[in-house]
Every structure is written in structure tokens, then in C-alpha cells.
């Protein structure tokens, strides 16, 4: 057990703590970190309206992607939970399979479909429509995020549906509630922890994403992930990049904490 815990401490916990340390130093003249100069400038700069706008954009795009992934994923998970048990395994496996393949390739597939000379626009042209600007805009970024993270939402919500005791819904129906009422008043509230888990996951990974905004947004969109990437590899301002990452970690921790609290309350009420 010890080698594993040691590895995680040494190469995950310590490096993440280091990020919080870097916040207080100045950048070196040739990039990197100047360990001799301490400052609070990075923190002040992180609250600059310029970055607030980018953060807000990240939140908006990530929020939109999360909402759509839930709208697609919940009914899919629900339908799988109603399938015969044998089919469930196969259906879940099929849902999660793309999630385990190369992220770059899955994103690239959408460039092939969406570009002006791509398959969708070619099909549109053959019926006298288009070309529509489908690529290098916010639509493409949100689509890419939804595409990549919906499988996880399906899995999280399916797990919640499976834990649900079917007798609750049966009791509701026996007492005269319609299928719709039963869903809204019984099934949905009781599976809310699964929805929250899926939502936090999609949201966190979306704000931290830089591949999708870069490849499908055509570099026109800066999300928090792109900003961090730029600070480290382009601007070479590591302390400021670390400050932004620390912000991302804090946002993530707050969301995870809120989700844990929410799940505990939902469980308690049951």
C-alpha cells in the first residue's frame, strides 16, 4: 500500500501544493520563477476585469455544456435503466466506450464534420442550403464539450437510478399519480445526487479544458484552461499561471464540497 500512497503524495499532492506556493513569487527574467522576489501582484492581477471576463465566459460555456449534457444524458440513462438487464451492460459499455478513446481524435472528428467543406455542409449544399458557419465558434465549442462528456453523465445518472428502490415509484403510481408526476416528484429528486455528480464533473472538466476551445473554437475562445496554458507555454509567466490554476483548484473544491453536502442531504431526507 505504501509505494502507491507515496507515489501519489510525491507526484500529485506535493506538486499541487507547490502551485499554491508559486503564487507569491515573481516571474524570472527568462521565464520560470524568481525565488528571490516575493509579491502579491499575481493575486491582484487575477482579479483584473480582463480575466474576470474570461472566467465568466468559461463559466457560461461550461454551464451551457453541462446543461445540455444533462438534458441528453438523463433520458438516455433513464431509458437504459428500463432496458432488460442483459441489454443494460451492453448499452452502458457502448455509452462509455467513446469516452475511453483519444480525446484529440474525438474532437478532430467534429472538425471533419463541421468545417465549411465538411460532411454536414456538403449535405446541406446538396439540398440547396448553407454553407453554415458551424466551426470555430461557440456552437462548436459547446458541441465538442457535450460530445465528450455526455457519456460520463449517462454513467453517473444510471448509477443513481440503479440505487433507487423501484417500490417508491410503484407506490406513487398505486396512489394514483401519473407517470409524469411520479417522475418529477419521486424519481428525479431521488436521483438528484447522481445529477449533481455528473454536473460537477462536466463543469469542472469544461472550464479546465483547453483542447476543445483551441481546436473547435479556432483560438477565438479563451477558457480558463487556455489561459493557464498560455501563461505557461507562451507568456512564460509561471507564477501567474500557477495563480490561475490555484483559482481553478479552489473553484473545483468548492463545487465538489457543495455536491458532497447536497448528496448527503438528499440521502438524509430519504
Amino acid at each position, binding site marked *: 500500500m505504501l509505494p502507491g500512497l507515496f507515489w*501519489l503524495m510525491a507526484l500529485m499532492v506535493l506538486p499541487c501544493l507547490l502551485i499554491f506556493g508559486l503564487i507569491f513569487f515573481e516571474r524570472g527574467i527568462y521565464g520560470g520563477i524568481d525565488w528571490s522576489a516575493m509579491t502579491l501582484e499575481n493575486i491582484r492581477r487575477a482579479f483584473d476585469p480582463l480575466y474576470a471576463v474570461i472566467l465568466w465566459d468559461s463559466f457560461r460555456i461550461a454551464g451551457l455544456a453541462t446543461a445540455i449534457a444533462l438534458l441528453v444524458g438523463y433520458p438516455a440513462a433513464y431509458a437504459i435503466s428500463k432496458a432488460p438487464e442483459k441489454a443494460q451492460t451492453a448499452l452502458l459499455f457502448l455509452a462509455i466506450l467513446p469516452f475511453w478513446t*483519444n480525446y484529440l481524435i474525438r474532437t478532430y472528428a467534429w472538425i471533419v464534420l463541421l468545417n465549411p467543406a465538411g460532411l454536414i455542409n456538403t449535405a446541406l449544399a446538396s439540398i440547396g442550403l448553407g454553407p453554415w458557419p458551424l466551426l470555430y465558434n461557440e456552437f462548436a465549442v459547446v458541441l465538442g464539450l457535450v460530445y465528450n462528456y*455526455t457519456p460520463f453523465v449517462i454513467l453517473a445518472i444510471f448509477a443513481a437510478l440503479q440505487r433507487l428502490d423501484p417500490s417508491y415509484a410503484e407506490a406513487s403510481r398505486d396512489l394514483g399519480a401519473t407517470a409524469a408526476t411520479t417522475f418529477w416528484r419521486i424519481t428525479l429528486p431521488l436521483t438528484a445526487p447522481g445529477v449533481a455528480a455528473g454536473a460537477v464533473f462536466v463543469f469542472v472538466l469544461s472550464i479546465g479544458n483547453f483542447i476543445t476551445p483551441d481546436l473547435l473554437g479556432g483560438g477565438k475562445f479563451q477558457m480558463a484552461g487556455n489561459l493557464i496554458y498560455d501563461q505557461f507555454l507562451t507568456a512564460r509567466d509561471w507564477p501567474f499561471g500557477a495563480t490561475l490554476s490555484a483559482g481553478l483548484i479552489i473553484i473545483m473544491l468548492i463545487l465538489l464540497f457543495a455536491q458532497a453536502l447536497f448528496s448527503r442531504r438528499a440521502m438524509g431526507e430519504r
Partner: protein
Amino acid sequence: MTRWHKLHLGITYAFLYLPIIVLMILSFNKAGLPTAWGGFSLEWYGKLFANPKIQFAAMNSLIVAVISTLIATAIGTALALGVERSGPSAVREALLFTPMIIPDIVLAIALLSFYTLLRFSLGLHSIIMAHVVFNIAFVTVVVRARLKGFDWSLTEVSRDLGAGPQQTFWHITFPLILPSVVAAALLAFTLSVDEFIIAYFTAGAGQSSTTLPMQIYSMIRFGVTPEINAMATIVMGVAFVALFTAQRLNKGQVPGM
């Protein structure tokens, strides 16, 4: 399942698989463009295999994936056994959960800063060490799932009959958990071969440590080319086979979640 359930599932799976299927079909298109079908051809695969840059990157990816998988499988299996046999610990659970939820970019820059601070040289070895971090977490999850229903009395019987701890592990525990260990290794291998961001940040300067996803990224940024379609088909084909095998071995459990 009602008709509506089936319809929604149909649309969802079409959404998930259409882009992948289109890519795979186009990789065999002689014309190379998505707009017209020029007949079946393996031309792009030939070009791909003749490309020394891609060969080099694929070799690097294999080295990283194989070594990080071996280390993570050994350490992760030991960790899973240890965790399952000892009492619950919230801190340990958090430690094991973090690598799966932390955005790649955060771990990537954290490791880059950490390596730089320690003046640790960058290259394939630093990528391998980084990949072991998230692979440990996934291996542990898969092996622990198997251990949940494990009958520990079997090991007690072995000990009572005079076998030592080592003998008991290799003759009793290990054969019983082997399918899940192999499944975990296959998943770790898939994750490592496909991982881009952490490798990109911890590879160091120069081209010597370019992995396949890094090569794919630079090709994609350059534009849509038929070679990428062919490469995508191969990379996804390998992942599908690995995952399917892992799923079979793991008795139908959906891998790693």
C-alpha cells in the same frame, strides 16, 4: 422501454458514434476528402506507415504506456489490496479520487513546476512518472471493485494450512484477482497511450520525447488530412479492442467507473 426511450437512445448513440464512424470510413476513401467518395483504398495507411515522425512518436508512446502500465499495475494492485483490508479512511479515498477528477492541465503544470524546482531532467521518464499517477488511481478502482466480493476466508485457510503470506498471495489471492488486474492494466495502457496534456507539459524541449498524441495534435492544428483519419482509425481500433477485452475479463463491469 417505451418507443420514446428507444428513440432517444437511438439518437444519443448516433450522436456518440456518427463522428467516429465517418472518420473510419473516410480513412479508406481514395479521394481523401470528405466531399466525394473516390473508391476504397489503403493508400493513406501506406503513407502513414512510411512517415518516420509518426513511427517515432508511436514508439515513444508505446514505451511510455508499457512502462507506466507495468509500474501502475503493480503499485495499484498492492494499494487496492491494502486499502480493502484496512479500515475506511476519508483522506485515502480523497487521495485516490483526486487523479480522476483533477483537470489534466492543473496536474500538468503542477508536475512541470515540481520537476523544474527539483531540477529534474525532462523526457520520456518524466512522462512515465506522471502517467503512473493517474494510472494508479484507475488500476486501484478496478481491482478494488473485484475485491469487494472477495472471500478472505480462502486466504485464512491457506495460512492455516501452513502457507506463508507470499505463498498465499501468489497461489490464492493473485490467481483469483488476475482477471481484474489484467483488465486494469489494459485500461491503464489505453489511458496512457491517449494522454496528451500531461505528456505535452512534462516532455521537455525538443522533439526527442514527442508522443503519438502530441504528433496528432500538431497534425490536427495544421488541418484536416486523410493521414489523420487513418491514424485515428488505428488508434481507436486498438482502444476498442483493449476495452472490449477488459470488459470481458471484468465480467461485464463497465471499466473503471
